């Protein structure tokens, strides 16, 4: 199949420099001074070696919105961001609520080959929140779906949510909730607080997220099911998740890179590039999210990569679409907010961006260690590099990055998927 690669001088999880030999899809040797006459040598002097990153929350838009993103372009962006697996959200058109659609997305991912694509199945038919989609059929399909979510919409009906939590136990699935009480967020445009009142933009109150998380945690505890909370954005949500975990309930949570860095003050520009759901919150929320991720209350970073065509952002705030790109900047933002601030070391970051997301998604062969015998999913990262974000550089079809013109630390130099390079020297291989 593919030739061997000898990675020279990389620092696994930021530790001592060593060589890694990748062959036949696996890491076959680890140690200083390795040699293999047939292997392609990759100079990794000074680079950190991480397990290939796993994203639990990606919008690839295909089928239906191929003008915004395709499986091929979105996974190319993922590989460039250091990811070897992504979970493709279900809010496509048609919705991924049948075995047919999830298998189509899974196949498109295999054909593109930039990273593994694990389709997320919709919880309810058409994301309408009324009756369960055929969760078992999606679980039993070739796509082997384990994560179910109506993301973009909240499963707001308590009975439907309870049934979904119970039902997925049969195949070790997890319900990933987009926590947003719909009545409290009608026409909501930005974080409800001091600034929304001044800007005259309809508020999205923290309680609309926290009330659903609290309810779902209680439900999950009651029926003994696995619950995952998407894109936690408030200090209060962190507290509730912490409390639920202390109860011993099987609840996990994610935070997006943008919620670890950006605040609602950006809405004062009325530039919809900063319009996202859940909205950017306050600096105090950002601090609480960083602390929560550091102490493990929040299990993982997930990008919520949400591509939108230019015209859906070059307009009035209220008319604009919610969402931001994230795959190609996630690791840099995580470094900037968590590693450079001393909150996590590289091993901790690998845990939050590879190991735990793979475990929540029940993916075998991803998020493993950098050790002999493990799958050859490796990301080589240069934390000392810096770059100015230029949206036109993105492999995504869309340009809606909130970091345009910002200087960010770090650069993904290479990504290996089962021993095969998907990215070399910062470019698609």
């Amino acid at each position, binding site marked *: 199949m593919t030739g061997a690669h000898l990675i020279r001088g990389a620092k696994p999880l930021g530790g001592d420099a060593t060589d890694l030999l990748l062959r036949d899809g696996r890491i076959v040797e680890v140690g200083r001074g390795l040699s293999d006459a047939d292997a392609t040598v990759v100079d990794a002097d000074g680079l950190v070696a991480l397990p290939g990153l796993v994203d639990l929350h990606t919008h690839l838009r295909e089928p239906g919105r191929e003008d915004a993103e395709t499986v091929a372009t979105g996974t190319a962006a993922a590989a460039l961001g250091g990811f070897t697996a992504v979970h493709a959200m279900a809010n496509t058109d048609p919705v991924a609520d049948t075995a047919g659609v999830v298998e189509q997305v899974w196949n498109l991912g295999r054909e593109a080959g930039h990273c593994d694509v694990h389709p997320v199945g919709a919880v309810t038919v058409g994301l309408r929140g009324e009756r369960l989609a055929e969760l078992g059929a999606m679980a039993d399909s070739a796509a082997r779906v384990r994560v179910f979510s109506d993301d973009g919409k909240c499963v707001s009906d308590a009975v439907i949510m309870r049934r979904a939590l119970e039902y997925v136990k049969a195949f070790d699935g997890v319900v990933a909730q987009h926590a947003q009480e719909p009545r409290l967020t009608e026409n909501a*445009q930005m974080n*409800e*607080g*001091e*600034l*929304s*009142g*001044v*800007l*005259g*933009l*309809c*508020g999205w*109150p923290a309680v609309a997220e926290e009330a659903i998380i609290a309810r779902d945690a209680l439900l999950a505890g009651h029926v003994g099911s696995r619950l995952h909370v998407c894109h936690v954005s408030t200090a209060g949500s962190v507290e509730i998740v912490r409390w639920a975990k202390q109860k011993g309930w099987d609840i996990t949570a994610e935070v997006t890179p943008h919620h670890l860095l950006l605040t609602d003050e950006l809405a004062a*520009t*009325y*530039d919809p590039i900063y319009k996202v759901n859940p909205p950017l919150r306050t600096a105090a929320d950002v601090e609480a999210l960083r602390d929560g991720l550091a102490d493990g209350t929040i299990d993982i970073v997930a990008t919520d990569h949400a591509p939108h065509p230019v*015209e859906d952002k*070059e*307009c*009035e*705030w*209220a*008319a604009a679409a919610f969402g931001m790109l994230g795959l190609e900047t996630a690791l840099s933002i995580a470094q900037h907010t968590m590693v450079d601030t001393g909150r996590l070391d590289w091993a901790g970051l690998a845990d939050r961006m590879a190991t735990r997301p793979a475990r929540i998604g029940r993916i075998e062969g991803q998020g493993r260690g950098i050790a002999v015998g493990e799958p050859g999913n490796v990301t080589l990262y240069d934390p000392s590099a810096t770059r100015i974000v230029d949206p036109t550089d993105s492999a995504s079809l869309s340009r809606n990055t909130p970091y345009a013109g910002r200087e960010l630390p770090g650069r993904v130099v290479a990504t290996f998927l089962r021993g095969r390079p998907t990215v070399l020297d910062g470019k698609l291989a």
Partner: protein
Amino acid sequence: MDRHLLSAADLSRDDAALVLDTAEEMRSVADRPIKKLPTLRGRTVVNLFFEDSTRTRISFEVAAKRLSADTINFTAKGSSVSKGESFKDTALTLQAIGADAVVVRHHDSGAPHRLAHAGWIDGSVVNAGDGTHEHPTQALLDAFTMRRHLGDLKGRRIVIVGDVLHSRVARSNALLLSTLGAEVTLVGPPTLLPVGVETWPVEIGYDLDQALAKSDAVMMLRVQKERMNASYFPSAREYARRYGLDARRMALLPEHAFVLHPGPMNRGMEITADVADAARSLIVEQVANGVAIRMAVLYLLLSGAPASAQLQDDGDVDGLENDHDPAVVGATEEAAS
């Protein structure tokens, strides 16, 4: 002054005083036989209205015409999505025809800000009311009207009553009046006061009777009856009872105090007919002063700007109602700067 007028917060105390003083000069134009100055001859002012507002549009249009500007009314109903042309393309069209100023009314908060800062147009942008955000020229005309009757507004107590949450008039007034040194009290049901209002430079009250007794002016805000369907208050009748201004409540005002309303009024809801038509009501005068204020704003924003492309011919432009006025002979007096 800034190149644009997007928010009352853009105005320093000196800026605001300059606008009000200039408006005094402009007001005198209305008393002349020929109500026209040549100041903005050859300049093009576009009234870009995404929302119906005959009152505000007419006020801006008359203001621009009295300054001899060419005015173009561009009415774009509905959202940019439903009408088929994007906000950006509309802006690029205005830029292409050489608009020196764009007066914009929009149903979305922040749309004028976007128009001014997205890099689509070079001209000045005047916010003529955006969503539930601001309406700075309304606040200026309110301040102007009150100043004419109360003198310097420093230390004056102004009560603003009603649906502050959805009111762009209330936001601009709270900002401008506090800049001018007035003491503002907002009164309304707690459901209609925005989250975070406690950080505004105002007092908050829920009891109208109590607030009226020590006020120099009371400004009633329009309340849409539909709000009661969203349970902001139980019924129109209960709203009127608790927060409406009727003759009994007007009698609680000090002798010298005045009543204002930005219009259009819901007679019988936030204000009774007898109060609206009372001698101490300044509501009709507010409308007249609106023209003077808008003349002052356009004059101050545009008179310093370099001459730009002029629409010399009445060439037909799709969707535009071209309204080209010949220069008026005989009105040669320049307004004081």
